């Protein structure tokens, strides 16, 4: 399993659009990807659950990937967060 921590910079947090893009990205990899905030956890392929975390600016989250392509997955996710969030 690989993971990284990130503090959300985007004003609106993980709102509808980036959540949608994240789901699309996650579906392109075989690893299971989760995001956790505190003790809440969501599967990144699930849009509503992801939005349901209500992740806002300055929230500290942990992103993790587990599976055969976890190395590439985590790199792609890191790029995504730095660019959009």
């Amino acid at each position, binding site marked *: 399993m690989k993971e990284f921590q990130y503090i959300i910079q985007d004003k609106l947090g993980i709102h509808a659009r980036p959540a949608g893009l994240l789901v699309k990205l996650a579906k392109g990899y075989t690893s299971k990807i989760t995001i956790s905030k505190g003790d809440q956890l969501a599967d990144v*392929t699930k849009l*509503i659950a992801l939005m349901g975390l*209500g992740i806002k600016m300055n929230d500290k989250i942990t992103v993790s990937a587990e599976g055969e392509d976890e190395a590439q997955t985590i790199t792609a996710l890191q790029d995504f967060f730095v660019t959009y969030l």
Partner: protein
Amino acid sequence: MEQYCGKSIYGGIAIGTISYFEDVKRKAVRYEIQDAKQEIERFERARETAMKQLCDLQKKALAEVGEEAAMIFEVHAMMLEDDDYLEAVYERIHHNNVNAEYAVEMVGEMFAQMFSMMEDEYMRGRASDFLDVSHRLVTVLSDNTNAGKAIQQPAIVAASDLAPSQTVQMEKDKLLAFVTKYGSTNSHTAILARTMGIPALIGIDVKAEWNGKLAVIDGYHGILTIEPEEDYVKEMQEKQQDDIARAAVLQNLKGKADVTKDGTPVKLYANIGNVEDISQVLDNDAAGIGLFRSEFLYLAADHFPTEEEQFEAYKTVAEAMNGKKVIIRTLDIGADKQAGYFGLEKEENPALGYRAIRICLTQQDIFKTQLRAIYRASAYGNIAIMYPMIISVEEVEQIRAIVEEVKKELREENIAYGEVEQGIMIETPAAVMISDELAKKVDFFSIGTNDLTQYTLAIDRQNAKLDDFYNTHHPAVVKMIEMVVKNAHAAGIWAGICGELGSDTALTETFLRMGVDELSVAPTSLFTVRDKIRKTDLTK
């Protein structure tokens, strides 16, 4: 005459009859089904139709009201593809043996309920999206082709809430204003109102019996008047005429020269933040671009923008301006405004920290890439450069040496470049005090009044508690501007203002009397400032 007070989303006045929109919600009938598999297939077919509708609506919204309003339909489509949403529907059909309409409605309400309890205002706003998208499915399932009512004549649309799928179907030229009970400043109705420039009020307890009645909306004060008295209507009609006349007067200024009554020419330029702003600059008739913030290239990317990427952006702007001046400000970024790949450390005091020219002079490879791109683009138009956050003559000398290196490299590679004026931003008190020395080293000054005010008054602009102390017309700042202009002229160079004070028409005359040569303002302020310049007589 009854008056109601609400929250105004967009100023302006509307007078017209009310067209009341019923709530779209209509209860789905529950019945027991025999074959769950068949029911799920029926649901899947409906889902496909709904997805197609959403795709069409998105295209329509994109063409008519812009990307922000169109995005809502993309989100709706994503909801219809969400595993949790689908599973919840399947489960109800399978285990409770209920019809698809009923299952969809229950699931929509469940998610709406969940989101309406969230802390975040934006997320609470999404609750209505679940209801809207579920309602769409129910409508398709019940084969209800009645897509909603059209507005027959120009009207003020009133409803307790409006779904995006309702507003997008309205004929835009018949919409006078919106009045709703629910919604927020971020709701789709609000976005639509702002894009179309029509008044909108929220927070008003809308009543069905208003349908067909005459009403007036005063978007400046957030007041709705039902069955207004004649005098009031007259008064508001006059206000409305004033608004129209004012807009027309400003539009009339298109093509007029930026000269004072006594014939003193002023350079009236525009500030832009990205390449797309160019169309606004051209529509509003600016004589040039006085501040092209190059940060967007860095902030919108996930890597340091390459020379080629930057070159394309600068070239596009230079060519679009067709020989008019384009002043590009080099990278102005700091710990408070950065892209992740910069890897800047968090600072106690980002406004006084590692930022702008300080980054460029420390990490010279970043700076050189930008300078090469700007110089290459200078072969395609009239480009000038200015450097932010300068505090010393040595910095300017260092910059000029790097610029010479870049030019030499380009010559050796046989790459063409044009004449590029070199200017600096005057935005620190230090630069003001030594502006006589700095003026000997550069071709022009551009005064960044926002930072200059913050640094001079020692007030953090982000701190709302200090609003009462923050005087944008502080005499210290005004005196500084006068000093900078005097020193610039003594050395034979020009001086302009590109901060927010540039568009403050209360100070335009003061600036022109000081001899400020250039004002660079937001594209939307160009006509207002031009109007002020043309009315100013410096001989009096």
